[in-house]
Structures are given as C-alpha cells and as structure tokens.
C-alpha cells in the first residue's frame, strides 16, 4: 500500500506521495488515490515534491483521477513537480490537462 500522507487544507485534500511511481507500484497508487475520490474527496492537490520518478503507469493513474474529479465538478492539481518530472508531463501533453503549480500556496489558491 502506497502511503499518500494525506492532509486537509480547508476543503482541499493535499496528498504528499514519496519516491517513485512506476509499474511496480502503480496499482497500489491507483487504489489509494481513487479510494480517496470514491470516499468523496474531489478537490485534490498532489504535492509532487517528494516524487523523483514517474512512468506512464503513474501518469495513467493521475489521468484516471483527473477524469473522476472533473466528472463530479471537482479538480486535481499538482504542485512542486521536479524539473525532469515536469518534462514528462510536458512530453505527454499532461501539462495541458492537469494544472501544475510551482508551489503549494499557489496551488491551493487556485481551488
């Protein structure tokens, strides 16, 4: 089970995952994140400060989460994404569809 280190800032659920999100743990990451959404959270900020690797398997989970939140008029956003990770979002086009903020306060103000 992936620990998302969840916390609430007002109505926004802030998640602080650590390390890698790749094919080996994507499933656990998916269960943890979508579990949160199924439980009713639809304003979610992913603090990527501690994430140093993400593969397409991780991107898929983020895409699923973004779709789910938008379906219930919510939002999924990222913040503090490391440069090389940011590149992945750029290459994949995800940067266009998932809001990426430089830091946490800026991100929170967008909700």
């Amino acid at each position, binding site marked *: 089970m992936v620990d998302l280190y969840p916390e609430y800032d007002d109505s926004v659920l802030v998640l602080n995952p650590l390390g890698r999100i790749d094919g080996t743990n994507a499933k656990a990451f998916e269960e943890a994140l979508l579990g949160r959404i199924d439980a009713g959270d639809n304003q979610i900020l992913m603090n990527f400060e501690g994430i140093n690797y993400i593969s*397409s398997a991780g991107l898929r989970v983020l*895409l699923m989460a973004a779709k789910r939140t938008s379906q219930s008029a919510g939002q999924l956003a990222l913040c503090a994404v490391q440069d090389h990770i940011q*590149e*992945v979002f750029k290459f994949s086009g995800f940067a266009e569809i998932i809001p990426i903020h430089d830091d946490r306060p800026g991100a929170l103000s967008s909700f």
Partner: protein
Amino acid sequence: MAGRIVGMISILTLVGVAAAAALLLGLAVDSEEDSGRQAALVLAESVARSLVNADLPSLSDSEVNDLIRVNVPAPDDSDSDIAELQDIWVFNPQARLAASSEGARTVTRDEIVPARGAMEPGAVTLVQSLPDGRYAGTAAIRGADGTALGAVRVEFTSNRIGTHFELYRGEYLIGVIAVVVALIFVSWFLAKRLARPIGIMVRAARAVEDGRQPEPSVAAVLRNTSLTRDEYGELAGVFLDMAREVGAREIRLNAQVEERTVELSEKNRALETAQREIRNDLEMAHSVQAALVPSDLPEDPRAGVAAFMTPALDVGGDFYDAFLTDDGRLAFAIADVSGKGVASALMMAVGRALLRSAANQHPDPSRAVASTNDQLCGMNPKELFITAFFGVIDLELGTLTYVNAGHDPPYIIRPDEAPEMIPHTGGIALGVLPDLNYTETTIPLDAGTALYLYTDGITEAENANGQQFGRERLEEKLAGSTVVEPKELMDGILTDLREFSGDAKQFDDITCMALQFVGGSVTLEPYIPGRGDARLASGWRRMVVQPQLESSLPRVTAFIERFAETEGFNPAEVFRINLALDELLTNTLEHGFEGRVHEADISVAIRSEGDSVIVRYEDNGSEFNPLQATEQDTELELVERPIGGLGLQLIAASFDEVTYERVDDRNVTTMRQSRESSEEDSG
C-alpha cells in the same frame, strides 16, 4: 519290588493251563472211565461172589436166571448204569459153559477167551464193550484159597450209551465256559488294573507337558498308586518325582525369563531414552545449523543471491553466507566442515562467525581467510577442518576476488558461455595449520555473469542404484540451464538433483548458492554473433534482464545509474533513459510473451558514442514496433483522452532518434540522444 503283577499273570496263566489240561485229561481218560465198563466189572464180581458157595456143576439154568432177577435194579432206578441184565453165563474151571440164563447155547471164542483169562491165577476181572451199547464183564469165582472154581460172565445193556465225554458234554461245556468267563473277568480286572495307572499317567504327563499341574483327582490316583508296591507304584513314584522336577524347573525357567524380560525392558527403556535424547540433540543441532545460515540474503540491485541448505539427518557442518561488507561489497562463502554431528555444527557456527567478522576487518579476502584460519586452529580440539570458498564482489568495479581453501571449485557462467570452474587458488582447508598465507585471485565479472557454488552433498548425492550425481552431471545441468537468475538457476539444479536421487537417503548436507552480478560496472559486452548489430562488439555495457518487473526494474535502474555515474550524465539524462527502458520493459512484459514468459530473453545495452548516448533494448517477445504505437493525440481534451499508450510516446519524446528493427525474431529498439541537447534541455 514284589512282582505282584507278574505273579498275578503267572497264576492266571497256570489256571488257564490247568483248565486246558483238565479238559484234555478228561478226554484222554474218557474210555477208561466209561461207567458201563465199571458197572460190568462190579456186576461180574458181585455175581461171582454170590456163586462162591454154589455147587457149580449142578447149577441149573433157572438158578442162573434167578441171579438175573436178583441183580437187576429196580426199573425206576435211573441212577443205575444197568438198563437190562440180559444174560449170565457160568463157566466151569475148564471154561466150559456150566449154566446160562438162556439155557444151553453155543459158546463163542469171544466168550471163552475172557473166561479163561479171568481164571488165570491172580487175574482180574475182564470187561468187554459189545456192540449196541452192551457191556460184558467176566470175573473168576475163586475159593478161599484163591483157586478159580469157575467164572461168570454177565452181559447187559447200559443205561448210558456213549463215552463219558459224550455223556457229560453239557457239564464239560459249562465247565469250560466258566473257566473262560473267569479268565475274561480276571483279565479284564487285570487289564483295568494295568491300564488305569497308565491312562492316569498319560493324563498327568500331558498336563506336565502343557505346563499345568495334574488335576487333583489324577494326582490323588497317582499318589495312591505310588504307595502300592508293584511296578506301577514304582513308575508312579518315579513319574511324580519327575513331574515335580519338571514343574520346579519350569518355575525356575519362568522366573529367569521374567527376570530377563524385566532387565531387557529396562534396558530398552534406557535405550529409548538415550535415543530420544540423541534425537533431541540432533534435532536441536539440526535447527541450530539451519538457523545459523542467514535467512535474509543481501538485496542489492547490482547483484542477486540465492542459497539453499538441507542439513542431513545426522547433522553435517555445511554452511553458506552472503552479506554486504561494511564498505558495501558483497561477500559470500560456502563451506563444509569435516565430520558430522553436533561438533561439526558448532564448528560451522564458529567458522561462519569468524569469517564474517574477518571479512569486515580485512578488505583482502586472503587476509580475512588467513585470520579465520588462525583463530580456528586455536579452538579446534576435535581436529575438524573446514573447506571453504570465500569471495568478495566489488559491485562498483565488477570484480570477484576470492580464496579457495580446499573447497570444490565453484562454477562461473558468463553470458552465453559454457560454465567453467573458477580456477583454484591452492589454499588448504581451514583449521588444519595456523599461520598460513592464502592466495587470492581477482577476475572481472561481466554484467549478467552467474556463479554457482556447492558442497559435495550435491555431487556425492546418490540415487537408489548407488550412483553419484557427480560433477559431470552438474556441469551438464549448468550448461543446459537457460536461466542465470540465481534462484531459478539454483532451483533448476536442485530439481535435477531430486529427480536423480529419488527416494534415496540423503547422507550429507546439501548446500548450494547462486549469485548473479547484474551490472553497474565498467565491463565490456563481448560481440555476440547473430545477435543484431555488430557494433555491439566494443564499448557496450549490457545486462540481461529477468522477465519480472518488480525485481528487474530496480536493477536496470541501478545499471543505468552506475553507467551514468562513470560517464558523468546529469540526473535528467539518467531519468529519461530509465523512463524509456521502464516503458519498454513494462510493455514487453505486459504484451510480449503471452504465457511464455519463461522463454523471455531480454537485455539492455548502453554505450557512449562521441557526444551521444545510445541505448539498445532487445527482447524476443512477439513483434512489436513501439514507433507505430505512439500515435496518441496529446492534444485531446481530458475527458476524451484514452487511458494507456502513453509510455511509448514518452520514449519517442525523450530521445532524439528512436529506431526499431526486427532481427532474428527479436525486437531491437535503439535510442540515441545527443548529450549536448539533453544538457540544454535539462537547463
């Protein structure tokens, strides 16, 4: 002893013989005792006496006839022998007929001769048997001086016709029957007397034979019999003595058997207790031995380790060890303590602990082994010794430095090469002599190289026919193995070994260890003909990837990081290469093998070429061109965007140039990235 029985039998015999003799005698004297003859004698003499005083010459026939009337018995006298007195003749001294009851008649020779005979001086009365049951008696008539005055002849018919025997047949028969009955009765009585004690003794003997006491009634009879003074008494007495002796002996024997049985069961109990203790000791030693080999083997992305040990039932002294030294190298050992039992197991525990601590104190394996040897020699009262192979892999440099102290040389299996024995360093077993110098040897390890270490429990394992598994078979199996992943390699050999051994008893510990150096070091991948691009011949670093994402991904990452470190790549470059390989590997494992993942042959190779880095990914999965699968429109709205297919797109985006070719049924994806541009990108 009185011969009572003999006496009785003798008497009985005499009685029988006497009875028979009497019977025979009776028959023999039959004619002599003819009562008719006796009657003739008596009658003739009686008539003669009555005529002594008579005047014989003047005797008239009528007077003679009167004599008949006088001498004829009463008609009702049935006891008399004379039925009818027929004639009386009187003769003169010249044997002429003087008078007769029949009157004048002719006298025959048969009548004259007896008369003359009877009148001879001193003659007796003559008797004749005549036909028709008649008798005749002729007696002399003698005067006082004995001179014959004449003779008289009487003829009569006997009342009892026949011989005495014929006449008294009934009486004889009754007598004989009585004697026979008496004999039978006496015999029966005797037989009973003779047989009864024998029957009793037979019953008593049976009882004794069966180990019982004779029944009281039988015993009483025997005792009574023994009191009598005959042969049976003697026999019964002897028998009773014997029975008593047998009984006593039986009792003594039973007591002895009982005693021995008790002794035996006590000894058995003691033996069982001792065995249980030994078994408990062995089981404890067994579990101690099993517990003394590390259950956690070091985990490092740069190397895989698998090890296995089954202690033999009577506890040997094999051990293996693998651990990361304090300075981050991978140290490993396999060893076999001489002998079996608790002492060997303890020696093994000590040996392993010493070697481990020495490995951390001394970076050089030769010094670590020498130090271990010295310490073992100082605490080895049982003169045990340890054959050991000790090696240290420098995971950074990709080298193996090892010392072989009298152990079977392990095998090295370089990628796509036949297994070879690791050359011996010529060291002798540990614990034999102190102050020895051990030689160490260093050999380079290519990425993907596997090592296989074992103890003689494997090569000397026997099958039911007593054949050993042997080194040749081991080499054959190693050469035939298509895998080099340590656990699979090791399990494959163990499976072969079990198939070979079958149900045969395991005599020795079975211990083996497999290692694979995954990569992360500066080694050259040799050119492999028929495997794609000939340019692989030089400058490449390559690793074989196991088809298991969880274990392989960290290793591939470590491999790339190690390469990047030596080449001075920045983290962004490392990230992109890793991401691309991750995506390719994930894709291959998800789609490329459809149920035949065990056949997977996947490798990653990387090299610097001028200012570029080239990454080459090969797999033997189903044909798949990643370039044709990257046509996902990244511009689609979020809700319309399909999930999946992203990874390959990331690859294309990460590299300047991505090419795909299908070579020898393998997918070969080559990615090239200019260093300068990546540095620019990463900013």
